[in-house]
């Protein structure tokens, strides 16, 4: 009986192989080539019509002596220009883009969920998708939209229906967080700010650790490994930190959390 059973399985396996992978294949010509051809055709017609109707911008000749207000970077970089409001240039212009590029590159290595490979599913990869959409749509695209449509002269906030007033002066009421909570001494302020930031990352990492263990179990954490875990929590906490800093500014007018002679955060 046992013998027969295994023989039967073997036949079944061979049969599966014979009809298995590859059996829903179709000829590239014409199936795929036709789709690509039609796609090309539609896109080219659209591009041609658009180019006939809308001219590429050309302003007055370059004049290094006359700075326009506002001066905006190309639209696809306006997300970074927008977070310049909240972070110093070394952070918004150098560290943040580096983290974004690195963060994108490591996605395939930190995501070890074998499910959802090659098909659309939300159920099987909820947290991956939510995180990606948070970073891509909520942070990146919304800051581009803000930078493009609601920032006017002086990088002030103008709703689309408001007139750009180049002479609008917004009172600079920003304060550093240590000052806000009553710290007047220089060194205490620096220590306070540094502890807040270190504390945020330490507590955040711990919270994330417990959350993942609670959600997925210890066995998962073991398989995931320390390197993947720390990378993921570091990158996630950075994304959250951007939102926290934005909220602190918009709600409490906080300028910096950490103030030192070398860097401010």
């Amino acid at each position, binding site marked *: 009986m046992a013998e027969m059973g295994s023989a039967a399985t073997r036949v079944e396996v061979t049969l599966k192989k014979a009809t298995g992978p*590859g*059996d*829903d*294949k*179709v*000829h*590239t*010509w*014409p*199936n*795929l*080539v036709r*789709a690509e051809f039609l*796609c*090309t055709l539609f896109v*080219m017609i659209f*591009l*041609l019509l*658009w*180019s*006939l109707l809308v*001219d*590429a911008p*050309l*302003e*007055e*000749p*370059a*004049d*290094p002596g006359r*700075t326009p207000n506002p*001066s*905006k*970077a*190309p639209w*696809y*970089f306006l997300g*970074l*220009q927008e977070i310049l409001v909240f972070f110093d*240039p*070394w952070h918004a*212009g*150098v*560290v943040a883009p580096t983290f974004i*590029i690195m963060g*994108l*590159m490591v*996605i*395939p290595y930190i*995501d070890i969920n*074998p*499910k*959802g*490979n*090659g*098909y*659309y599913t939300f159920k099987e*990869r909820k947290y991956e*998708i939510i995180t990606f959409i948070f970073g*891509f749509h909520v942070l990146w695209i919304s800051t581009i939209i803000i930078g493009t449509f609601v920032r006017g002269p002086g990088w002030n906030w103008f709703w689309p229906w408001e007139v750009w007033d180049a002479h609008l002066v917004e009172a600079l009421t920003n304060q550093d967080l240590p000052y806000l909570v009553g710290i007047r001494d220089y060194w205490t302020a620096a220590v306070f700010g540094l502890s807040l930031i270190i504390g945020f990352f330490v507590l955040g990492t711990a919270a994330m650790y417990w959350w993942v263990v609670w959600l997925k179990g210890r066995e998962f954490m073991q398989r995931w490994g320390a390197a993947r875990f720390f990378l993921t929590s570091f990158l996630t906490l950075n994304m959250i930190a951007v939102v926290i800093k934005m909220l602190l500014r918009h709600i409490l007018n906080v300028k910096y959390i950490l103030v030192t002679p070398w860097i401010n955060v």
Partner: protein
Amino acid sequence: MSSQFDELKRQVMESQVWQSIFRHGYEDTPRNRILMVSGNVWLHLHPSKVRKHATRLRFTWCMGGITFLMYLVTVVTGVYLMFYYRPVAEYAYADIKYLEFDMPFGMLMRNMHRWAAHGMVIAVWLHMFRVFMTGSYKPPREFNWVVGVLLLVLTLLLSFTGYLLPWDQLAIWAVSVGSNMGRATPLLGYEGPFNEVLGVNPIYDARAFLFGGGEIGAHTLLRFYILHCIFIPLVTSLFLAVHFWRIRRDGFSGPAL
């Protein structure tokens, strides 16, 4: 009459010249369908057979293909523009005006170049989003995702360097604002944190390296021109070759059978 035509057609198609160019007939046979792809240098980027879902617009959104199409459009229209454009501060702006008003199809070519470049940026983001949503970066395609991220960065750099070339107010100020970040690079930028360590100064730091000098000027124009028309397209083409090669090697993603 029609028999004469058929005779002529037969003679042409059986001639040595014709047969040296076209290797097979056009009858719709499985063999010809495969030869159509494998015998054609452009089409053989594809495998001769693909899984059904991979031909569906709702799976790929055709976004990688559209990104590539936009790239090709900018290459073709870009060559046309290069015939009339000199990357010299005195001429650049006038050349653009000249191109717009005096060259046959000049305005159209410039428009198509510009809008295809924007289109490429949008398409590459959507393509990345699609690849993410289908989980197509998972093993064995991890590395092709990394190559993709490099292509994304290269796409942005292509667009950014091209932004300067019209040499109008929009161009130099957008590029100034974008490049000022270079000055804030920690260690390497004149205004960045810890700049004293390496002793960088306004005419010798990360931004000056990008600009080819302490301020944006004629030297920057030449530099961006070469980056835009030669260097970055070359690098992009290399990575595109890797990208496409890897898609073939790793197979197209799809649900397990």
